[in-house]
């Protein structure tokens, strides 16, 4: 039985403004095992980034718990910790950001950027600091002679490597990658994803990989959660999900993946309409407005998130009588 490192229990995050109330994350639960990669996918605006922010406690949740299990087995509920304990936990859970341009302070040298987390958490001498920064830079394949440079000297891919070095310099256990490769060129994406995989193999990181790119997700992750309008629609191992999706939304998403094989003919399932306004979500199953299998019960009754098959969770009224198409991968 794999060791759990992160438990997300019924997490909700509601943003209030004067008139509207937006439930960006709505009662989401899942667990992450140590050393694995869990991906969160969904359209933009589905709440995956907010969920990532809740997990690293960049924002406070409005409901539920995020439980982190430390090396010694102690469980910490991240959102009820005092400032001091939280600071000591922070270095275990780090984040890689989407935009490699806004995530690096243009006014600091690369050395200062990578060493900042170290200086905030440990009292190190200059030479220790240098050694650790150089080690982190070397791990992400960054020429150590570049450390004196400022971010403006680097391309997007190199900047992202700097961001990764900053995240791993603290030797974290969990790294939340928020769309970590979406802003990069496809060729660079592959490099960065492979780098992340290598680092995981070497250092045993646990990744929470937030993305909208299904091919990247399929390549890197062990398990996948599909989110729609703040709710988890389906959660399963990558194999299960890609071969045998149980949720119509997953099926539609999968049908949009391009397969690099001209002999494979796939039917694209178009998702009609826009995603509903999260401030004013539909009744019943949130997906019913765009679902091609929608029946009366979907419109009225709320749907439960259940473990339909071992390790395969889904929220769909018609899960028993639908036979959905996945994509077969070699």
């Amino acid at each position, binding site marked *: 039985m794999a060791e759990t490192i992160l438990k997300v229990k019924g997490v909700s995050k509601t943003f209030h403004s004067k008139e509207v109330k937006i439930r960006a994350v709505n009662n989401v639960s899942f667990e992450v095992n140590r050393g694995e990669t869990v991906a969160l996918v969904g359209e933009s605006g589905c709440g995956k980034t907010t969920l990532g922010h809740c997990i690293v406690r960049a924002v406070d949740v409005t409901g539920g718990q995020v439980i982190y299990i430390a090396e010694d087995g102690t469980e910490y509920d991240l959102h009820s910790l005092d400032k001091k304990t939280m600071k000591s936990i922070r270095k275990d859970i780090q984040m890689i950001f*989407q935009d490699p341009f806004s*995530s690096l302070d243009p006014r600091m040298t690369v050395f200062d950027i990578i060493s*900042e987390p170290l200086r*905030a*958490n440990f009292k190190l001498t200059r030479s220790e600091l240098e050694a650790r920064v150089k080690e982190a830079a070397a791990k992400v394949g960054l020429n150590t002679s570049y450390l004196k440079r*400022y971010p403006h000297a680097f391309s997007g891919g190199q900047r992202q490597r700097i961001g990764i070095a900053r995240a791993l310099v603290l030797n974290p256990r969990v790294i939340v990658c928020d769309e970590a490769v979406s802003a990069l060129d496809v060729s660079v994406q592959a490099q960065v994803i492979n780098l992340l995989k290598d680092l995981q193999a070497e250092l045993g990181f646990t990744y929470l990989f937030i993305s909208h790119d299904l091919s990247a997700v399929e390549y890197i992750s062990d398990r996948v959660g599909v989110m729609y309008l703040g709710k988890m629609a389906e959660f399963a191992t990558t194999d299960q999900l890609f071969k045998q999706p149980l949720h119509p939304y997953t099926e539609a998403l999968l049908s949009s993946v391009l397969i690099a094989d001209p002999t494979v003919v796939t039917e694209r399932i178009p998702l009609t309409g826009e995603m509903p306004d999260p401030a004013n979500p539909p009744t019943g199953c949130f997906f019913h407005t765009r679902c091609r299998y929608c029946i009366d019960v979907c419109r009225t009754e709320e749907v439960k998130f259940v473990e339909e098959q071992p390790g395969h969770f889904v929220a769909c009224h018609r899960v028993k009588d639908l036979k959905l198409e996945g994509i077969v991968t070699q």
Partner: protein
Amino acid sequence: MSLGHMKRSIRKTNPDKERARQEKYYTASQWSLMWRKLIKHRLALISFIILAILYTGAIFAGFLAPYGLGDFSGSYSNAPPSKIRFVHEGEFIGPFVYPYEIAYDEFWTKVFVENTETPYPIRFFVKGSPYKILGLIESNVHLFGVDNSNLQPGKDDVRVMLFGADQLGRDLFSRILIGSQVSLTVPLLGTAISFVLAVIIGGISGYYGGIVDTVIQRIIEVLSSFPTLPLWMALSAAIPPGISVTQVFIAITIIMSLLSWPRLARTVRSRFLSLREEDFVLAARLAGVSDFKIIIKHLVPGFMSYLIVNLTLGIPNMILGETAMSFLGLGMRAPATSWGVLLQETQSVSNIANHPWKLIPVLFVGISVLAFNFLGDGLRDAADPYK
């Protein structure tokens, strides 16, 4: 082979140099990037040089000015600018002036006529009235002045007045230089005070947000809705009449800065708000960096360049403000002087008609205002090298 071609071929054959040049760019900090951009802005650079000259003039006013603040000469009352001559009776004898003699024209208006009998040579490093530079170095040597050694006894000193004289026969050139000490430092000091106020108040507003922010913003709106001129007048009317020159100077500086901080505080606040949302700030927070350190290391350097731009662009208003106040008799008072005080004489039309050189201080006000504006423009273009 053309020069451009040669240059290119040198570059090609010198890859090491090229690489070093590139590395220098890659390791260039925000400020050196800003500087690189600024010196490409021709107008800003020229303005910068002009301002440097003006401020050097203010610092060394005592030395550069041939006469002191209180030097007057009855025979030079309202005298026009001296003509500096080089040739006397067909012979080149170096720079000199002829003394003025007073005559009356057919309308019985006083006119100054040069008496071309004796030339009075202009010499460098002549002794005159004592002065202090920066309050430290005492001296009575002036850069230039008239050699009065062969003056007939009983006659007034012959003077060189580049910009003419005022009603009391004081040299306008000297007084412009000495006046610039006030006119050019009030804006700087005032800006420094409003800078501190703006960073603190704008910072609090942007950092805490919520009610604090709302209250501060409303106060700023009220403050900036006052019409400036009446407010100056009201505030300077509150300056008691009997106080010393230094105290008047400080009071004016404070009035100027009290009126200019609200705009700056807004800039600080808005930069604060936008920077707070940047990913690198979140990254620092997630790494466990304290709030205070985030402010000092990420936020303040982030808005500093914008603030400097705004400060520079705010200085012209202060120069104009001080001039206006002094012109109206609400600012600096005699015996102290500033450009505004010098312009008081131009309040009557006949004065301007008969002695147009008395408007020369306007030129200085205009030049310094324009220079600060152009410099601010250049700084604004250079402010964010990362865009």
